[in-house]
């Protein structure tokens, strides 16, 4: 072109420090929290502490990853706790052979896991369908399954507790890899399987968000939905998949939860999980209005919340009071975001 001109490298670029601030603020908070515990809490620097915290945080992080993607599009998913309950109710029905007895136990468990996760994903897709087809606000559309989902779980189990003891299934909540044959002196018991699942999901989602077409389209929709549509981004399709992924993540977390408990109680599985996940996303530095998201931030956010709770409990503060601290953390995170936007 006639007016060709090389981009002028001399144009001064004002460094945009705000995303860095909010990202490293969360990481800094986590490090500060760890240092604080090292100084204050007895026996903090042990494998046991790490084990307890990572085991407890895994399901929140898994759900939080799906939530991060949803929030990145500018939406929200309130149904994740109920979808956990559905997956948690469905899996034992299958592997305990309550409807049809699959003779091979490994096959039964595999079918149970795959089917229950896929069903949760299908319900998530339904959320996305409601939102895109009828232009219902996400908070309302997912409220439908927030309410109905737990009902479905309860009805399908007749409201009964489903206890089980089945190592072939419970590896996902109780199993460990690299477990030493004999108890070691330092208390290392191996890496819990659900932590491994968590790490894989976080890594996959973080990579996809930054490197895949799908991830960039998610952020484009959250950043400016009208512009994204006019640039040919298939907004409805992307959103349906995002809610579907959130459902799949909830399904996985539901299985982890019942495996840990050796039983499935439709009334309790995933109770309040939606709020824990949203809190982790918010503390992690993802913009709640969409367009800017960090999956690793969500991991850090969940770790902060978990560690604060652990710190307070380990130092004799009751769990109820710990909720106040959690609330304060969220306020702090939102405040940081506001500053980032201003």
């Amino acid at each position, binding site marked *: *072109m*006639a*007016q*060709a*001109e*090389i*981009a*002028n*490298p001399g*144009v*001064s*670029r*004002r460094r*945009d420090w705000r995303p860095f601030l909010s990202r490293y603020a969360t990481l800094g908070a986590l490090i500060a929290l760890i240092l604080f515990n090292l100084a204050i809490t007895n026996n903090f620097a042990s494998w046991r502490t790490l084990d307890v915290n990572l085991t407890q945080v895994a399901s929140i992080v898994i759900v939080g990853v799906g939530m991060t993607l949803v929030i990145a599009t500018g939406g929200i998913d309130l149904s994740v706790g109920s979808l956990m309950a559905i997956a948690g109710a469905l899996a034992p029905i299958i592997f305990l052979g309550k409807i049809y007895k699959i003779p091979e136990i490994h096959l039964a468990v595999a079918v149970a896991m795959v089917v229950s996760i896929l069903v949760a994903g299908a319900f998530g897709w339904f959320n996305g369908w409601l939102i895109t087809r009828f232009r219902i606000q996400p908070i309302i559309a997912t409220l439908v399954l927030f309410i109905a989902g737990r009902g479905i779980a309860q009805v399908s189990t007749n409201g009964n507790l489903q206890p089980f003891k089945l190592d072939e299934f419970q590896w996902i909540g109780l199993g460990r890899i690299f477990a030493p044959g004999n108890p070691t002196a330092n208390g290392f018991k191996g890496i819990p399987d659900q932590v491994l699942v968590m790490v894989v999901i976080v890594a996959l989602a973080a990579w996809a968000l930054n*490197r*895949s*077409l*799908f991830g*960039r*389209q998610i*952020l*484009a929709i959250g*950043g*400016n939905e*009208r*512009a*994204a*549509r*006019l*640039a*040919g*981004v*298939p907004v409805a399709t992307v959103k349906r998949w995002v809610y579907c992924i959130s459902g799949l993540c909830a399904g996985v977390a539901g299985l982890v939860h019942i495996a840990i408990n050796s039983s499935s109680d439709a009334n309790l599985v995933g109770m309040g999980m939606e709020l824990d996940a949203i809190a982790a996303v918010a503390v992690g530095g993802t913009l709640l209005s969409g*367009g*800017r998201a960090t999956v690793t931030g969500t991991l850090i956010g969940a770790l902060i919340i978990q560690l604060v709770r652990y710190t307070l409990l380990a130092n004799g503060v009751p769990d109820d009071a710990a909720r106040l601290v959690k609330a304060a953390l969220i306020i702090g995170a939102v405040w940081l975001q506001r500053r980032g936007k201003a």
Partner: protein
Amino acid sequence: MAATESTASPLLSMRAISKAFGGIPALSAATLDVAVGEVHALIGQNGAGKSTMIKILTGYVARDAGEIVFDGGPFEASSPQDAQAKGISTIYQEINLVPYRSITENICLGRESRRFGLLDWAAMHNEARALLSRFKIDVDVRRPLMRFSTATQQMVAIARAIGFKAKLVIMDEPTSSLDEREVNVLFDVIRQLRRSGVSVVFVSHKLDELYAVCDRVTIMRDGRTVRTSEMKDVSKVELVASMLGRDVAQVAKSATAFGGPSTHIGATTLEASHLSAGHKVHDVSFSVRKGEIVGFAGLLGSGRTETARVVFGADPVRSGALTFDGASFAPRQPEDAIGRGVGFASEDRKLEGIIPDMSVAENLTLALLPQLTRAGVIDAARQRAVVLKFIASLGVKCSSPDQPIRELSGGNQQKVLLARWLAMGSKLLILDEPTRGIDVGAKAEIQRIIKQLAEDGLGVLMISSELEEIIEGSDRVFVLREGRSVAELPHGEASEAAVMAAMAHGEAQPAEQEHA
């Protein structure tokens, strides 16, 4: 009729009003005088300063300089509510009412009658009924507002405004959502107001309406008042000319950077016949050929943008036919149009163009991205190559492809958005106000790029409110008026006079024969 008194006693006098937003002047010493019992038209193109003027008057924004005299004394409104209390009411384009509440509640909102600390419903219903009867509207005032037609809702808004014993009523495009009969009812209301001594400031882009109901007119352009006159003393063409600034002698022979007409015009790329869609497009036919710049001229609200959105699949079409490259073309989503080789740069870059938080590179490749991926994974190297190529060829000034696009100037953002479609190898580019909000230097640069694109064989549909751009840049001009394509003018024949005549009357003859 009321013209004789209208010059007599002034009700409102706004003098030397100035206002700047973030250093950019929106108003420079603008004036507005309205007499008692006068219907006063206030007109101007987008950005002329009409709405800023109204916002200052109603206390929505504070003025930087100037004085306002209203009803014999200095006037200062701290908020729209304050202005209303002092006798100036505003009826906005969109209806600012509570759809779920009854008509009575909407009319009496904020000034409820009370008895013993409770609402006096009987009195309020009576007041609402009495008010509406002035407008010849007889409805059940207890029913929720949303159960009634848009017209009735509009009337309720007007009734509410006048119910405050207003001395001046500002109507900002009150007829945009009304049908013909309802417009006539509204005009009766306005005439009745005039008889009872209430003044009206009437903002509209429909010129016929101004002649039907207004006594005087104030024309604004670029933040200044350029003309005030009796309505009957000014012809439609004069109105349009004043709005566009054509009465000023143009010294510069060529005000744009387009150069002459395009030389390599080929076969028809897009053909639209008798399109209609939504409320604003009724019957639009036009075509764009390969290597041709087609200009869409028309006043605000003439349906130019709406037509473009239909062609791009962003809005549904009601009737009419489209062909693209000789085959029928019915895009249901922008994706469909993009797939066929159409690109669209919206008039509102911030709202519909850029993804502000994303980088230059990502904004540039947003549409192309599916083609830059292998199994869903973005090929970063190829993406970077494309981006660097277009940054260089269009001269985008940015520190690096990774710079967030919101940090770029308007002109550079526009170049990135052009590149978004060029990277796609589009055959037809729809540009809605491509140089709006861009400084003069970058403007010329964008215009040169558009010209070069046409020379390279691209079909360009350019919507512009700037007459120079339309007349000098277009190889053919289609003039739209109230949702209809009313004239087709080739480059040589598209004179300012012809285009303005078509915008004003719907015919391209310079109208010496016209009488006001």
